């Protein structure tokens, strides 16, 4: 690559990242302002930076419990998705069985159900089995789209492990469970990391189901945010601060799996 071309590429990327960051920066900027400053003067950075909005969030249980709830059900869902998807992904990557392709397509179609209209049935279902307003309810409901995705990604990684390894282990007298946990799982460690990242991400960004299945005890932070309209109008500063805080867990998770992201996006089975 010539030097000139390298510089053009760098310039294009920098420009794109500036455009990408502007809206986020603006929210960050507002989160350090008081409502008077937001509505009174227009400034590119906070003139009198204040942490008052963040203080409200960290001291008011109605706010910070939202974060704890979101992180709780997201983590539960991530663990469950990976655990359930592992054996299935192994089956899809190693065996042909009756109806395997149809089953795989059926799994994928669950990503396509227009959530907005399935909300009431979901609400009734979880109400009836007594799980309404628990973390488990949201974690279970999110399995709907996270399990198929996890199977899809894991299967790609497993297909990259040669079958001879399975056969050698069998000859060496390893039982299937022992082979699976002691040999196979360590081999696809990075795949499990990537899968966990995707499961976490989709569970973290989903609001519709999470909001429908909870009221107080397991209410997600994103739902708490929709209640910032008070009698005195919109509390923009607080809304912005809460928004900024929802970005942080995602940013941390990306940082940890940054070297595997590209690989994970090469989604297996196709």
């Amino acid at each position, binding site marked *: 690559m010539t030097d000139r*071309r390298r510089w053009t*590429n760098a310039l294009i*990327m920098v420009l*794109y*990242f500036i*455009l990408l*960051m*502007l*809206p986020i920066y*603006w*929210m960050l900027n507002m989160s350090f302002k008081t409502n008077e400053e*937001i*509505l009174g003067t*227009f400034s590119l950075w906070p003139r009198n930076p204040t942490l008052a909005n963040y203080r409200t969030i960290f001291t008011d249980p109605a706010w910070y419990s939202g974060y704890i709830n979101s992180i709780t059900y997201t983590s539960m869902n991530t663990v469950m998705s990976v655990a*359930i998807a592992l*054996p299935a992904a192994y089956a899809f*990557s*190693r*065996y*042909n*069985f*009756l109806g395997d392709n149809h089953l795989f397509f059926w*799994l*994928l*179609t669950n990503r*396509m*159900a*227009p959530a*907005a*209209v*399935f*909300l009431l*049935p*979901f609400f*009734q*279902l979880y109400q009836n089995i007594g799980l309404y307003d628990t973390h488990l309810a949201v974690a*279970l409901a999110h399995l*709907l789209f996270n*399990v198929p995705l996890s199977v899809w990604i894991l299967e790609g990684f497993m297909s990259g492990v040669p*079958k001879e390894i399975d056969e050698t282990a069998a000859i060496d007298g390893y039982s299937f469970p022992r082979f699976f946990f002691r040999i196979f799982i360590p081999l696809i460690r990075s795949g499990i990391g990537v899968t966990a990242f995707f499961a976490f991400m989709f569970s973290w*960004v989903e*609001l*519709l189901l999470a909001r429908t299945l909870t009221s107080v005890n397991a209410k997600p932070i*994103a739902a708490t*945010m*929709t209640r910032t309209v008070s009698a005195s109008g919109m509390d*923009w500063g607080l809304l912005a601060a809460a*928004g900024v805080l*929802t*970005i942080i*867990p*995602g940013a941390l998770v*990306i940082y940890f799996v940054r*070297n595997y*992201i*590209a690989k994970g*996006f*090469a*989604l297996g089975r*196709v």
Partner: protein
Amino acid sequence: MEKTKNNRAWFLVLPVVISVSFSAIIPLMTVVNYSVQDIFGPGQRVWVGKEWYVDAVRDADLHAALLRNLLFSFEALLIEIPLGVFLALRMPAKGKWASLALVLIALPLLIPWNVVGTIWQIFGRADIGLGGYFLNSTLGIPYNYTLNARDAWYTILVMDIWHWTPLVALLAYAGLRAIPDAYYWAARIDAASNWAIFRFIQLPKLRGVLLIAVLLRFMDSFMIYTEPFVVTGGGPGNATTFLSIFLSKLAVGQFDLGPAAAFSLIYFLLIQVFSYIFFTTIRNIGRGDTA
């Protein structure tokens, strides 16, 4: 990979089938149940048979929302796919800059969808938002997404591009990294132009991931709900009332569960047909490559 035929593999997929069925089939059957009844309240319902399905063929508002959504999906795909590929070609291939670029580019994907809505709701406001203020006061272009239908449409479109182009870029980036260096050496020996490298090496190799990108983006943009709901609530008028917003207004707002259920089943079926076509295409292309 050569696979063995083994029907006992069903035991391994059983946990998946059970966990997904629980949240998929029961709610789906409830929706089917709604779709053939007129529901007035708990315990008050009348069997209406195929009436709501007949309505779906005639309902002008439904058709308008469907067309609006198709147009939106089309515009979003038309911009996001080429832009994503363009960016992927320009991202650094390795080293610390590559890591940084990956982290930055993936950021919008990890923001909860309603926060994405909130970010753009704030950003576009003429009084307190940078974008809205810049357009109105600095450039002198009148812009107001709550009053002007065209402004609202473009706000949602730009938001969607901002939110989802990174997904296309990451997919394309992963596809590009899978091309062996030998291909590029061969191209250099032939003194191929950058365009020729793109056209004859990179693009054919990206076909698989691009089909996934199109599939994912089509499905998601066709079901878009949370983000426009936060920014415009479907307005002004019906300008940004996409299919999901229309259906949930019907189901939750007016409590017309029957028609909403029937319409959404048709909608679900429509997405599945499109996706099945994509899915089979992708698989067949994959087979062609290995053979």
